[in-house]
C-alpha cells in the first residue's frame, strides 16, 4: 500500500528574541502552536496527536517537556511524543510527525519545537567537566572552527566567503519579521571587521542565542482539501546518523549528510538538485557551513560550493536562494532551529513567506544537522501534491 500524502497546512512562529521574559516555556510554545492552528483555521479538537522536540536536556534543564507541556499543547487525551537529536531535532521532530500521517496512524498532527536559551547556557551544557579529561574548549564554535579551516584548505576558497554568507543572511533577516537579529546598519565591511572568536570564525559569522518556538500542522489529503490556504506537500523526507568521531569520518562533508540527501532526492524523483530545487533553508550556525553544505547536499561538486556563494547564486535574488529567512545565523533557538528551516521551506512553496518570498518556488529543501555533524534530517516540499 502506498503512503498517504502529507501536507503542511499551518505554520506558526514566535518573534524570536534574545529573551522572552514575559512568557513561561508553556506560554512560548502555546504562542507558536496557536499561530499554526490559526493559519490552518483549525482548533485544538482537530488535532489527533502532538510531536514535540527541544534541545538537549542540559541546555535548558527541562527533562520531560512532553509531561510539562501537554496542557499548553492541547495534548490531553491524545498521543504525545518527544524526539531527541541535538541540533537537528526540529527537523527530525517534523519527520516523526510526518510519518504518523504517511503511515495513516493519524489524520492531523501538531508538531512543535522550541528553546528558551535565555533560561540556560548552551556553552555550559556543551562543556561539562568530565573527570580525567583535559578541559580544552567551551562551546560549539571552537568545535566546528577546525572543520571550517579544513574546508578552506581542501577547496582553496578565498577567506572572504564566510563573510559574504553572514552579510547575505543578515540582510535577508531584515525582510523576516520573526527573525531575531535585525541589523539595519549591517555592511560587508562590518562583518569583515568583527573580531575573530575561533579563528577562522569571526563574531559576525556566528549564530545568536535566541528564545523561540516553531509549530506546524500536518495533515492528510482529506485535511489538505479543507485547508483555507495553499498546502506545502511532502515529496521526500529522511534522517541519517553517524558517530561523532570514527576513523575515516569526513568532518567537512559527512557521509550521513550525503546519504540523507540522496534518499530525499530519490523519493522526490530529483536527479539534478541544483536545477530542480528552487530554494533551500539549510542549517548554517557558522557562515562557512553554507558552502560546506552546498557540496554535501549535492548542489555543487566537491570543492565548488564556495563559488556559488561568491557569485551570488545563493542570494535572495540569485538562482538558488539559500536561507531566505536569514537562517540560523540570524535566529537560533537551538531546539527549534531545524523546524524553522523546514517551516520556512514550506512557507516558500505555499507562497506565504511575505517579504522574503522568492517568486515561483515550486520545490524547496529544508535541512537540519546536529551533534558533532552526526544527525541529519531533511525534507523536500512542493507546491503540488506528489505524483502518485
Amino acid at each position: 500500500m502506498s503512503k498517504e500524502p502529507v501536507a503542511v497546512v499551518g505554520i506558526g512562529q514566535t518573534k524570536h528574541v534574545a529573551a522572552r521574559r514575559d512568557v513561561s516555556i508553556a506560554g512560548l510554545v502555546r504562542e507558536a502552536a496557536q499561530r499554526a492552528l490559526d493559519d490552518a483555521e483549525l482548533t485544538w479538537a482537530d488535532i489527533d496527536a502532538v510531536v514535540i522536540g527541544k534541545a538537549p536536556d542540559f541546555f535548558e534543564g527541562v527533562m520531560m517537556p512532553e509531561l510539562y507541556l501537554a496542557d499548553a499543547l492541547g495534548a490531553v487525551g491524545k498521543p504525545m511524543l518527544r524526539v531527541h537529536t541535538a541540533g537537528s531535532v526540529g527537523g527530525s521532530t517534523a519527520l516523526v510527525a510526518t510519518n504518523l500521517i504517511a503511515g495513516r496512524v493519524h489524520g492531523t498532527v501538531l508538531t512543535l519545537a522550541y528553546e528558551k536559551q535565555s533560561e540556560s547556557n548552551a556553552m555550559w551544557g556543551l562543556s561539562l567537566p568530565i573527570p580525567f579529561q583535559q578541559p580544552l574548549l567551551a562551546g560549539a564554535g571552537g568545535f566546528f572552527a577546525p572543520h571550517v579551516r579544513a574546508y578552506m584548505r581542501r577547496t582553496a576558497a578565498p577567506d572572504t566567503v564566510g563573510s559574504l554568507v553572514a552579510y547575505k543572511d543578515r540582510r535577508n533577516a531584515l525582510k523576516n519579521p520573526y527573525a531575531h537579529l535585525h541589523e539595519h546598519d549591517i555592511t560587508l565591511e562590518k562583518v569583515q571587521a568583527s573580531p575573530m572568536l575561533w579563528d577562522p570564525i569571526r563574531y559576525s559569522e556566528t549564530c545568536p542565542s535566541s528564545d523561540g518556538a516553531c509549530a506546524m500542522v500536518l495533515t492528510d489529503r482529506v485535511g489538505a482539501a479543507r485547508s483555507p490556504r495553499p498546502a506545502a506537500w511532502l515529496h521526500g523526507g529522511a534522517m541519517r546518523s553517524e558517530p561523532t568521531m570514527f576513523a575515516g569520518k569526513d568532518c567537512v562533508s559527512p557521509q550521513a549528510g550525503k546519504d540523507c540527501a540522496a534518499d530525499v532526492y530519490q523519493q522526490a524523483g530529483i536527479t539534478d538538485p541544483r536545477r530542480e530545487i528552487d530554494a533551500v533553508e539549510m542549517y548554517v550556525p557558522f557562515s562557512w557551513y553554507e558552502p560546506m553544505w552546498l557540496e554535501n547536499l549535492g548542489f555543487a561538486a566537491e570543492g565548488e560550493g564556495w563559488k556559488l556563494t561568491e557569485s551570488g547564486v545563493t542570494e535572495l535574488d540569485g538562482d538558488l536562494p539559500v536561507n531566505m529567512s536569514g537562517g540560523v545565523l540570524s535566529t537560533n533557538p537551538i531546539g527549534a532551529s531545524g523546524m524553522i528551516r523546514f517551516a520556512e521551506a514550506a512557507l516558500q512553496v505555499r507562497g506565504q513567506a511575505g517579504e522574503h518570498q522568492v517568486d515561483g518556488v515550486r520545490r524547496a529543501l529544508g535541512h537540519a544537522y546536529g551533534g558533532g555533524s552526526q544527525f541529519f534530517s531533511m525534507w523536500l516540499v512542493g507546491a503540488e501534491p506528489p505524483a502518485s
Partner: protein
Amino acid sequence: MPEVLKAPLVVEFPFTRSLGPVQSAFLTGLRERVVLGVKTGDGRTLVPPVEYDPVTSEEIRDLVEVAPTGTVTTWAWNHAPRRGQPLDTPFAWVLVRLDGADTSLLHALDATGPDAVHTGMRVRIRWAEERSGAITDIACFEPYDSVETPEPAGHDGRFEDMVTGIVAPARLDYTYSPGRAQSGYINALSDRRIVGERCPSCRKVYVPPRGACPTCGVATVEEVEVGPGGTVTTYCIVNIKAKNLDIEVPYVYGHIALDGADLALHGRIGGIPYDQVRMGLRVEPVWTDGGRYPDHYRPTGEPDADYETYKELV
C-alpha cells in the same frame, strides 16, 4: 584486569525560569501569604494553578484564593531527607487538597513519625519567615486540629511588585567511570605513554580507545602504543576566554594525528607563537609532573608533513 577508574561528577546549573502570568501570580501570592488557584472551564479550581485548561485546552486566567488549610489525600514517609529538601529531619511527603481547591499540592508535612500521619488528616501551611516568591515560601505543612476553616479573603491575584522569574538550581551527582579501555589509556598517560586499541575487523587504531570500534561494532582489546610524534591536521585559534577554563587566550586548539593512530585527538598547541601554527606541523607531547594528560603539544622541529600524508585524517 586493571582497575577501572571512577570519580565523582557533579553537574550543577542555576537555570532561570520566566513565570508567565499564572505562575507569577501564584508565587507572588505565596510571598504575601495568599494561596491562589485557577478556575477551569468546568468550574474546578486547580492548585497549583496552570496556564491552560487540561480538558478544553483553552487559556485560563481566572485566579481565586483558597484557604491555607486542607486535607491530606495521600502521603509517603521520608526516612532520610536529602540536601535541598524542605525539612532536614524525617517528614512525610503529602498531597494536600487545600480547602476550596479541587486538586492537590505536593509538599512536606512536619510530623513526629509515620504513625502521626494519615490520609484524611487536616493540615495547614506553616509559612517561611523569609519569603521571596517561591514554593519554599511554604516552609511545610503542619497538623491542624481546629474544626475552623479560615475563610479566604477573595484575592484576585493582582499584587504590587510581581515576581516574574525564579532561579531553579539543578544538581545531579554521578559516579563517573570512563570504562575499561579509557582507564587503560588514562593510566598509561601517567607513565607518559599514549596507547590506543586496534579494531580486530578494520584494523584501525583508536586513540583514545573506547573499547569498541564505532564503525564495525566489535570490541577492541589489542593495545597499540602510538606517537609520541604527531601531525597537526587542523586547528583553530581560540580568542575568547571561557569561564570554566584556566587557559590564557589566544591559544591554539588542534587536531593531532599521532603517528600510528587512525584518527586525530584534540590538544592545545604551544611552544610556538599562535599565529605560526599550521596544518601539517609536526608536534610532540609536553608532560608535566603529576599530570593526567599532556599539558600541550609543541613543535618537534621536523619538516612539516605533506598534506597528502594526512588528508584522510582531517
